[in-house]
């Protein structure tokens, strides 16, 4: 059983934890040993959030070692840069092309890195860093809260997990009225990922 270490990062409120719960449940259904852990700090809203998700035949540490991540999923660009050094050289990064500058930038306490700098930093680790327009696509769908389903759709192309199970687990984890739109967001994510990675 091939091991997969996923690091999912973003900003509190974006759905990072729900996304990491979903991929963990899908992997559990496929027979993987699974560990996942979130680091939230004390922020209720708007702070940096990172989830470590580990899949394999036997997983020990819930925390992934630096340089061991197989798939980095960033819900926000700065949060991709913050964790890029965790990526294993040559592995996959899926980055939502969306900037949410922290309040510290607005107060003059820092500079939001330019796209080129983020890309340059990621390119040092891997040729397989992909920017996807997740926020723009789910805004078109009419529900920004489906971003996690969209990004899980992107990630699903890199994991040997069945689409039907993904869809089942997503349906169980989102509000009853939002199941169809999340299923659509998941499919759009797959489509977008195919487009940018081919």
């Amino acid at each position: 059983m091939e091991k997969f270490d996923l690091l999912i990062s973003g900003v509190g409120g974006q759905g990072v934890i729900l996304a990491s719960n979903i991929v963990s449940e899908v992997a559990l259904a496929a027979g993987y040993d699974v560990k996942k852990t979130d680091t939230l700090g004390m922020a209720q809203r708007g702070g940096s959030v990172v989830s470590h998700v580990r899949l394999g035949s036997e997983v020990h540490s819930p925390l992934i070692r630096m340089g061991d991540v197989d798939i980095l999923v960033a819900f926000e660009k700065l949060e991709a840069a913050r964790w890029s050094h965790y990526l294993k050289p040559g592995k996959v990064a899926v980055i939502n092309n969306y900037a949410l500058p922290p309040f510290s930038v607005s107060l003059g306490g820092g500079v939001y890195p330019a796209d080129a700098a983020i890309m340059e930093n990621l390119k040092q680790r891997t040729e397989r860093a992909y920017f996807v327009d997740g926020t723009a696509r789910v805004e078109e769908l009419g529900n920004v809260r489906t971003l996690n389903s969209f990004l899980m759709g992107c990630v699903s192309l890199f994991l040997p997990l069945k689409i039907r199970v993904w869809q089942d687990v997503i349906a169980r984890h989102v509000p009853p009225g939002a199941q169809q739109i999340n299923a659509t967001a998941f499919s759009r994510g797959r489509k977008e990922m195919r487009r940018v990675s081919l």
Partner: protein
Amino acid sequence: MMQLLSGNEAIALGAYHSGVRVATAYPGTPSTEILESVATFSDIYAEWSTNEKVAMEVALGAAYAGVRAMVSMKHVGLNVASDPFMAASTTGVSTGLVVVVADDPGMHSSQNEQDSRHYARLAKIPVLEPADSQEAYDFMAHAFTLSEEFDTPVMVRSTTRISHSKSVVRPNRDRLAADMPAHFQNCIAKYVMMPVFARQRHPAMEERLVKLADYAETFYLNQVFAGESRLGIVTGGVAYHYAREVFPKASVLKLGMSYPLPANLIRSFAAQVDRLVVIEELDPFLEDLIRSLGIRVEGKDFIPRVGELNPDIVARAGRGSGLFDNNHNDETTPLPPEPMPNLPPRAPLLCPGCPHTGVFYILSSLGQRSRLPGAKEKPPAKSKLVITGDIGCYTLGAYPPLSAMDTCACMGASIGKALGMEKAGLGRKVVAVIGDSTFLHSGITSLVDAVYNDGRLTVVILDNGTTAMTGHQHHPGTGVSAQGRDTNAVSLEGTVRGLGINDVTVVSAFDIKGIRTALKSALAADELSVVIVRGPCAVRIKRTTPRVIDPEKCNNCGTCRLLGCPAIRSEAGRLYIEPLLCVGESCGICEQVCPRGAIH
């Protein structure tokens, strides 16, 4: 059926399946979800207690009365509960009492990172340390059995990484029958701790500890994983998994019970390995105990005693101290790269629409404290006010631009410290700021002290109607129980007036003028005064049309930025309100402070 559970959920399920009938707690990261989770079982009694001391006492009472009980808290909660905790150890129990304590190495959301295992040693009781969710589930059954077999409370020690990680759990039992009626067998020599009886209990405790240490020798939660003899690792809790991951070939002695220690088991393990190393988080608890047995052991010479461990830190320590053999991957591969430099941080902030923002803004301006970051004008060397703070989201009011808090130590300390400063003769007015849940937790007793000793300070109670920081738990003031039932609500103003305080004002958290008037009057009064600032937590309010700044009227004076509201931003020198963040009309504080009427 296999489930993915967090450590906290697994502890709750383990307790439930072990027949727990009374569960108590006060919320505190990382322990909160234990009670939240166990409270979902309707056939047990679960309560949010006023504080951890009360939680311990309620659970102890249940364990005296023939019912299995669990009390859960964060590490610093055990400081609050330490008196009944020690008493529970002295009297012992009738039925199982399990004390779950969740430590926070790395201080993800805590004011210190004390190691609770020391408390188990102090109280002479056993402590079990699960390493993942399956163990968290399993160990609860052992904890209850040990408690009853040895007539002792049992500590189950978790950490943030155990409590807040999900892993696979296979529940292996149904709920133990828990239908025995409660019964209390009076026995003053056991339950009435006058000196004459306590003198009999102490030798019983010492004897119990010897028996427990003997039991630990063959207790199957203390496991040996045979590996190479070059390196022997003694470990427990989540550090066990880091050790296995970083040193897969080493021999490992995993101590599921980290107190009291199985001396012979450790001696025989040590005799089989060339080097004995303890890998544990925080203090050298196991290491010092093992050394005191006369066994040569290493550990904190290279494993940090500060902060949370992770596999990278353990590997780095291993590199520096020759724990790897020469051809091991970790000895030869280059270190991973550094993170991208100079990234702006995403520090925690008071939310947009937070009911604490307005009162801090006023305190800040009355105390002549607030300055925009980068402002040329320096604040006065001495602020007009000294503001003692407390524990909750509102501690974030200490940050600029609000800068409206001078101290924060532990739960409920704001009022006592304010009184101490006043009695020390500090010339300036002292204000204590405390949240509703924290006030009920342990602020009340200090306020009684201030009444009794004729304090003249001002106490500001920030009443957002919930325990917000830990995720919106109910408390005695909310009128709803931990299991969602309507119940009595303790009135803050009624309580305060009942203590004999006459100068009591209640004001809306979103009425800037009202807050200013109330605070000015309270600060001017030469008597003890209480201002209750009331408004719902921003996370729980209904959002309406966001506020906007009219660029025609705005002259960029920056007054609104003194609120520190994350929704008020500037781009290319112009101020604007981020519509995705603003909560709309339930707040409206920026609208009230704008001197040019540019926000609507």
